[in-house]
């Protein structure tokens, strides 16, 4: 028995099938060879651990997420209008509550039923389980534009790409209630390059045209845009010549925006994308909230809205035809 023989036994998972004589040979070798003794002990420690199987519902959950992701991905091209079932149900609860309360002449404060609906929603999502409390960050109170909501994303992140159509729908449907800002998360060098490109597009007034295209370029056309040259070529397709690209890309203003994004990510302790921060107080991400992340955000936004805004929104929902 020598060191090579020991390695062959370990590599081939042959230890359990050794004969008594072979075991004795192994024991003799290990007693005099610290290299093999250590390797054997490490192998043995790992081999003794038995990993349990997956939870019974995990495959079904994975299938559910895949369906949502695919539908979201298709939505980028079709832009189909489709309300998420649970969010619609939640909105319906609030609408019915508002309708009934106003009809009952409870008054413009929203009435008991609206509050009951809000309480029912509030009980569904819990801090620490469905979202995180950002106790160390600076709160951002609601303004005239709405409750500040910040999405942290990376262009190279596939879940962010899948999530984008839902977020865009959320943005358009909550205009006036939610002030949505997108902030690039900077977890690596390519993400920093993309963050710089994001703010370059913003500085050049091209962000609206380029944002979705940026995702498509990476995830549909498999062009990673991982170099300055690739980005310059990409910007050129949107009418930005090389000189304008270079000037904006290297500008101190863009540099400051990138540094602000990095600082904000640190302040909010962003560790995954997509993550959404509401009012500087709460952070939601798919690993905590799963596919219900936007429902969690809806609830947190509702909690952060001033009372008079909430009640005014409830009044609008009551009107027939869905328009004011």
């Amino acid at each position: 028995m020598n060191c090579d023989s020991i390695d062959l036994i370990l590599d081939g998972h042959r230890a359990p099938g050794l004969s008594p004589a072979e075991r004795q040979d192994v024991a003799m070798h290990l007693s005099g060879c610290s290299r093999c003794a250590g390797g054997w002990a490490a192998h043995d420690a790992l081999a003794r651990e038995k990993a349990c199987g997956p939870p019974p519902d995990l495959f079904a959950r994975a299938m559910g997420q895949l369906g949502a992701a695919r539908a979201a991905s298709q939505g980028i091209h079709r832009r189909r209008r489709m309300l998420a079932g649970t969010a619609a149900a939640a909105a319906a609860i609030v609408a019915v509550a508002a309708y009934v309360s106003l009809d009952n002449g409870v008054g413009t404060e929203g009435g008991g039923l609206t509050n009951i609906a809000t309480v029912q929603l509030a009980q569904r999502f819990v801090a620490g389980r469905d979202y995180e409390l950002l106790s160390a960050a600076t709160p951002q109170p609601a303004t005239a534009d709405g409750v500040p909501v910040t999405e942290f994303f990376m262009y190279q992140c596939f879940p962010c790409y899948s999530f984008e159509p839902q977020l865009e729908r959320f943005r358009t449907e909550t205009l006036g209630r939610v002030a949505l800002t997108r902030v690039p998360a900077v977890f690596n060098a390519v993400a920093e390059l993309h963050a710089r490109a994001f703010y370059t597009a913003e500085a050049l007034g091209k962000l609206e045209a380029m944002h979705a295209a940026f995702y498509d370029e990476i995830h549909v056309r498999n062009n990673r845009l991982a170099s300055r040259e690739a980005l310059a070529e990409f910007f050129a397709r949107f009418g930005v010549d090389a000189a304008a690209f270079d000037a904006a890309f290297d500008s101190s203003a863009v540099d400051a925006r990138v540094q602000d994004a990095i600082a904000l990510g640190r302040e909010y302790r962003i560790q995954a994308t997509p993550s959404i921060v509401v009012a500087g107080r709460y952070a939601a991400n798919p690993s905590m909230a799963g596919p219900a992340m936007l429902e969690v955000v809806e609830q947190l936004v509702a909690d952060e809205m001033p009372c008079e805004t909430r009640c005014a929104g409830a009044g609008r929902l009551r009107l027939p035809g869905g328009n004011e």
Partner: protein
Amino acid sequence: MRLPMSDSLEQRFRNLVQPHFAALYRAALRLTRRRADAEDLVQEVCLRACTRLDDLAAVANPRAWLMRALYHLFVDSARRKRRQAAVPLAGTDAGDSIASDAAGPDLAAEADRTHERLAAVWHRLDPEQRALLSLHAEGNDLEELAAIFAINRNALSARLHRARQRLAKLLAASEQEPALRLVETER
């Protein structure tokens, strides 16, 4: 928010992934040593498989393809979380997910100690070393590992040996320096 995939896509996905799903999860659990992280990792693998279902259907060894995806996603994730404290403490969900088959109270207690020692040093290994050791401990032979890691068998054997030696040193150090474990746990 959950929307069904089309029937044909769902069936293809089931046929290709479900037979290997339990093995994927067990490998993910060994890699991450946390149930929630393992679930996330497996779901990421499923997402990748779903977006590249044609690639997966075309390979001769779908299990190796899925394990390779698991490995790459794990390495990416480990890099992102490098600064996170990720050493499981006694009583976390890892303890009831990775269990020993040791019989009897003495052996079980010894297995618990080994498990704790492994948990304390696990994240000091390189992500690739964790992946090698986990997938090997899950019963994959060198041929399967060579396919997963896309390296030849000799190179794989050498890396596996180095990973074992590194783990052995860390385990020995943790046994001799209990203070080191405390620092790791509280970081």
